[in-house]
Structures are given as C-alpha cells and as structure tokens.
C-alpha cells in the first residue's frame, strides 16, 4: 500500500491537494456507510450542544471580577469564587505568612527532579538517596522543627492539594518497601507461616473498602496506643493509607516476581548467592523494572483514593471545599468547586498515566 502510494506520488504531478486528502479521510473514517454517516451527524450535534452549554456556562453567563455578590445574579460560572478561594484549595488553612514554605518544597522537589532527565544520574543509587533525603527535608519544612527553630505548623492546618500530595506521596513511599517485603513473604517456599501471614494480610486488606480502613485508623488506631497518647489525625489517616496501599503494592510486586524465570534464581544459587543476595542483586532489580508501569497506575489509584480522607474530617481538596461552601458568602457555589477539584485531579492523574503508558511502550520496545 505504502510503496504503491509512493510510486503514484513520484510518477504523478505532485501531491493531491489538501482538501482532497481531508475529504478522503472523512469518507473513510466518518462517512463509510449510511449508518456511520448518521452516527457521525448525531455525534457532531451532541458535541455542538455540549460546547454551546459549556461556553454559555463558563463564559457568557458567568460572573467576573472579585465581588461575590455578582455571582448571585449570574446563572453561569462564578469566577470570583476562584479568585478568593484558590489559596485554600492549594494549601488549606496553612498560615498565610508561611506560604513560602510549601513553595520552597515545590522548588526543592523540582530541583531534585531536574537532574533526573539525565540517564546517568537516574541510574545512580545515590540519586534515590537524595530523593529520600529531599522527602525528609520537605516534611521538616512543611511541619517545622523545634530543634532547628523553624516554627511548628499543626497538622490540623494542613490542607488542600498540599495535603493530598503529602498523603499520596508518603503513602506510596512507605508502602512500597512494605509491599516488597509482603510480596517476598507471599512467594516464600520454605516459610509456610510467613507465607500464611502475608497472604492473610494482603487478602484481608484487599477485601475491604478503603473507607473502613480509614474509619479504623481514626476510631480504632488511637485505642492501640498507651492511654494518654494523643494520635495526630493526619498521621492516623496516613498510617491507614500506607497499610491499605501496601497490600496492593505487594500484589503488583508479586506480578513482577512471577515474571522472572526460575532459571535466574537457580543460576544465582549455582553461583553461591544466598537468599537475600539473590533477591537484592538478581531478582528484585529485574522484577521492579517490569512493575514500574503498574506501580504508576497504583500511584494514580492511591492519589484518587486519598480523596476519601475528607470523609473522616481531614481538609484535603474535598474537605476544604466542604468548609468553603459552608461559608455563607459562597453558599450554593458547589458546582464551581467540584469542577475545579475534578480538573486538578484530572490534570495530575492524566499526565501521570500518559507518562506511564509512554514508559510501558519504551519497555516493550526494549524487550523486542
């Protein structure tokens, strides 16, 4: 087909005109039968209706400026809502005069991430150590530290996108090593008790909804600590998220472990490596490389799941929104907030998933 077309082009008097190519494409892809033509027209009409509605809602009938009063009269989107509340959506009730701190963390993470574009840097184990260190530093910047004379900010004031990101990044960071251990335990041949414990844990957690784990974290977890110990609400939720995510991580990692041919392990044993050496130098490096794309999907799922902390009273994106629309000024502006939150989640999740599918394609190409 291709060569034929090329020959035609070479022999003929140059390319066919643009409009003819476009018409040909439309005939093939939109109007190739009378039924398809009908469907195409119906779809076009639907798109037109939706577009008219959206433009009317977001632009024509919208209220502009900074005055909340103007929204009462307007039928459409209330732009003043965003002008006033976007800070709350970003960092929640984090003190206004300390807002440079989250900004500093963003810069810090960007600073660590940029060298990662070089392959040589990515392949160094030290780069990952730097990431871990950056995480610890970021936590101290956000939370503050007495011994460094950085004023403390109570976790009750953390909120918005910042809290969502902290919960999900820390969730994935801590649950990953736990998940690896659980997966190794589940795959263990010689230790039936350990295997049973791991299988029990994984199936228990995967069998119940996250919200029950979060209820457990907020209602039951404080009872586990000695009397008088006051468990931080954010920390409790974070523990719940880590415990939940670890089971899913374990299953992802197990998928990678299963993909490693048995010959690799036998070869390692033949060379004289013991179990931990075999795992650390032979099996895990290969298995973890395979599971990077599903790990990214797990991260997206976790990021979406952190929205449930609003139900147990944390001020993440949804939680802070509930606070905002309880304010009489913004009463009845629910739609704007939900659209905004949806957009934030969508931008983050969609870009990560696109990156993951790119990675997956690259891996597949490397294997062939």
């Amino acid at each position, binding site marked *: 087909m291709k060569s034929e077309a090329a020959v035609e082009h070479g022999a003929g008097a140059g390319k066919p005109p643009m409009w003819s190519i476009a018409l040909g494409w439309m005939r093939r892809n939109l109007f190739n039968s009378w039924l398809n033509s009908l469907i195409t027209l119906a779809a076009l009409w639907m798109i037109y209706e939706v577009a008219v509605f959206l433009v009317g809602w977001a632009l024509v009938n919208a209220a502009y400026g900074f005055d909340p009063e103007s929204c009462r009269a307007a039928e459409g989107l209330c732009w003043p809502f965003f002008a006033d509340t976007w800070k709350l959506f970003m960092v929640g009730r984090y003190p206004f005069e300390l807002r440079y701190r989250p900004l500093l963390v963003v810069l810090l993470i960007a600073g660590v991430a940029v060298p990662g574009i070089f392959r040589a840097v990515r392949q160094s184990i030290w780069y990952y150590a730097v990431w871990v260190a950056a995480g610890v530093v970021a936590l101290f910047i956000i939370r503050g530290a007495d011994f460094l004379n950085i004023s403390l900010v109570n976790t009750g004031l953390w909120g918005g996108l910042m809290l969502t990101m902290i919960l999900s990044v820390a969730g994935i960071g801590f649950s990953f090593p736990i998940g690896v251990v659980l997966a190794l335990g589940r795959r263990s041949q010689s230790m039936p008790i350990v295997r049973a414990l791991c299988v029990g844990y994984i199936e228990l957690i995967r*069998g119940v909804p996250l919200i029950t784990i979060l209820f457990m974290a907020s209602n039951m977890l404080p009872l586990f600590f000695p009397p008088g110990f006051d468990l931080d609400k954010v920390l409790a939720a974070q523990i719940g998220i880590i415990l939940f995510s670890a089971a899913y991580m374990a299953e992802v990692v197990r998928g990678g472990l299963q993909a490693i041919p048995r010959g690799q392990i036998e070869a390692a044993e033949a060379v004289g490596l013991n179990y931990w050496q075999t795992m650390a130098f032979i099996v895990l490096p290969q298995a973890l490389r395979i599971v990077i794309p599903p790990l990214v999907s797990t991260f997206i799922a976790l990021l979406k799941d952190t929205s449930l902390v609003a139900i147990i009273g944390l001020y993440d994106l949804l939680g802070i929104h509930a606070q905002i629309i309880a304010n009489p000024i913004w009463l009845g502006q629910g*739609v704007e907030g939900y659209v905004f939150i949806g957009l934030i989640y969508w931008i983050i999740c969609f870009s990560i998933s696109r990156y993951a599918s790119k990675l997956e394609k690259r891996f597949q190409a490397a294997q062939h």
Partner: protein
Amino acid sequence: MTPPRRDQPQSLIALWRNPVARAWIYQIAILLAVGLGAHTLFQNTRRNLEEKDTVSGFAYLANEASFGIGEILPVPVLEGGLIHLLIAIVAGLFLVFLLSRWQKRRGSTIGADTRLVIVVFILLFGVPLAVLFYSGDTIRAIHYTEANSYGVALMVGLLNTFKVSLIGCVLATLLGLFLGISRLSSNWLVAKLSETYIEIVRNIPLLVQLFFVYIAVLRTLPQPENSLRFFDVAILNNRGLYLPSPIPQDFANLFMLSIAATLTGIYFWRRHVKQRQDRTGEQLPFFLPSVAALVAVSGLVWLIFGTPFQLEYAELRGFNFVGGLELSPEFTAMLISLTLYTAAFIAEIVRSGIQAVSKGQREAAQSLGLRGGQTLRLIVLPQAMRVMIPPLTSQFLNLTKNSSLGTAIGFAEVVNISGTIINQSGQAIEPIALTMVIYLTFSLSISMLMNWYNAKMRLVER
C-alpha cells in the same frame, strides 16, 4: 587442621547451616514478634476501653437503634418459610454437587445424560419453587422502624449495599460494553468520543464525581411541582427519581411460572438442536421458534387470565409524589456515579478483551464461511470472554466496595449505618470489625467462585 570433633557446639552450627531449620527459626521469631505486638495492642486497647467504660462484645446489636433510615428495604426474618426455602436451595446445591462428583468418577459429566439434566433442573429450581409455593406465606419480613435493633438496622444497610451494587453492576456492564465497542468503532468520531469519556472519568476520583452528581446536579433539580417529566413515565425532581412500579395482580405467579416453564423448554430444545448438529451436522431452527414459543405462551396466559402486572404511576399529592417506584436522590446519585465510573474501567477491559483475540482467528472463521455475526458469537466472544471475565469480576467487586462511599452523601448502606452505630453506641471496634467481615466474606466468596471458574476454563482449554 584437625577435623572438628563431632560433639557439642558443632550441632548448633549445623542447625543454623541447615536451610530448613533456619527457616523455622526465622518463622518462630517472626511469629513471636507478631504475637508480642498483637498482645501489646490488645493490652493497650483493653486499658483504653476500661478508662472509657465501654462494654465490649456484640451485645449492642440487640439494643434499640432509635435512629431513622432514609432508605428502607424489608428485612426477611430467618424463621418459618425462609428457613425451608434456604434448606431446599442448599440441599439442592449439595445434591447436584454429589451428582457431579459421582458422574465424574464414572468418567462422565451430568451434561452427557438428558435424564440427569432434568433431575438437576428439578433439584435446583423445581423443589425450591414448590417450597416457596407451599410455605411462601410464612416468610415474614421486618419493616425497619426506630424501635428495631442495631442488628436490624445493619441488615437494612446490607440490603441497600446489595441493591445498589447489583443494579450498578448490570448498568455498568451494559454501558461499559457499549463504550468499549464504540472505542473500537471504525467511525473516528465515535471512537474519539468514547476515548475522551473514558479518560475523563477514569482520572477523577469517584468521590468527587459522586458529590458532583449529588450536590451539583440532583440538588439543582426543580421542586416536585415543576418536575422534569419524560412522557410521564419517569419523573425527576430534587426529591428523587420516580418510576412506575409493577403491581402483581392475581395471576402474576402463574404468568411468571409459565415464562419459567417456557425458558426451561427452550433450554432443552437448544440441547436437542446442539446434539443433533454434533451427530448429523443438520442445523435445526432455534432462535425463531424460541421467541415464538415465549411470545405465544406468555401472550396466551395474558389473554386468558388478564394482565399479570398493573403499572402504578407516581402522582403529585400536595407537595410530594406518592406511589410508584421511588428512588431517593442519594440512591440515584450513588447509582449514576458508580455506573458512570465503573463503566469506564469495564470499557477498557472489553476493548483489550476483543483486541486480545488474534486477527488470524477472525480470518480463519471467515475463510471457513462463517458470517460476521457467527464469527463474533462463536469465535471472538468466547475467547474474549476468557480474558475479560477475571478483570470484570474484580471490577464488580470494586463497585461493591466503592458503594461504601455512599456514607459521604448519607446513603444508608453498611458503612453509613455502622458509622451511625459507632457515634450512637460508643462502640468503636465491633462495628468496624463487623463491616470488614461483611465485605471480606463477600470478596472472598466471589474470588473463590472466580478461582473455580478459572480452573474450569483452564480445563476446557487444556
């Protein structure tokens, strides 16, 4: 170097060098650590509970609930007719299981002998129906009121969870099938629209979508007086969605029974047609006679005995609609968002399932002379199903677990009721544990069923 003496410390070293012994030492150590941790947590919890004067145990389930539930389904009581019915069903399943084992030992299957198939039909459907007919009147159901116990409240929640999950699974599968096939459409616009929908819905948390549907869409609907009406069949306002409800008339049972009998007949006709084709290659008509028989029998019963179901429409009385099938805003929001969300994931499963069937299979079918529909029905779908069913089941389980988000908008499902019980009774551990056990039982039984199905499919595949 003198060889080591064969007594004392050497044996300990040997124990440590023995992989099996070492594994057991590790395991005992880990078990001890886990046990110690659990003991500490238990002791702490006990002391905390003592300080709060909380009585532990499940006695609270019998206490009066004294809170209202917006969404009430009748809870059947485990006595009289229900017990008979359950016994009949379980006994039927058990006997069929024994029968299949017996046939297997003889190197045959139930399906090979028509007489055995008839026996299975009688055991699985005939006997329970007969039991229902004779002792159906003694089945009693509780209509929850505030005077009932926490236990009954929890049962109502459980039924609500089942209700929304079951309907949600059916609707999500239908929508997902449609979206997944659209995504592979030769029409570029349709494929792109479907992809856009999937990518939007999959990347926004369900909870955000749920709130959006509940607060941004349903709350902004008009008052009952200005309801949106679709040909007077469906009525939508800010109090919920109203649909006509079928009211069974005198001969409704007979009508349903005649349909069941016809379906049984169709099943056996299909068996006969298949066996005939396997034996002789001759194809008997199947589809048209079946439809004709179904229409004829049900139509005949309808004509002789009158309409089996009368539709009752909701009517505006005062400020609200009365009668018909009322779906609360919470249930409607839950159902819509669960369906829209899960359908996007199911669409991806359907797409990858269809794409997993290699093109050669289709081409081979065409070269054998199968028509388009036959290729899809006999070649593509059976193979796609094998790939699709395990992830589909996990999506159904996800949907069921996600129905727990109903607690955020006050839909009275298990987690919501448990939350209310926690707040009212002061029990923290037991309601959460009970909720977890409920979900766990459900998940584990479904995954056991799944493993059984996979094993069966693998056997077929060889």
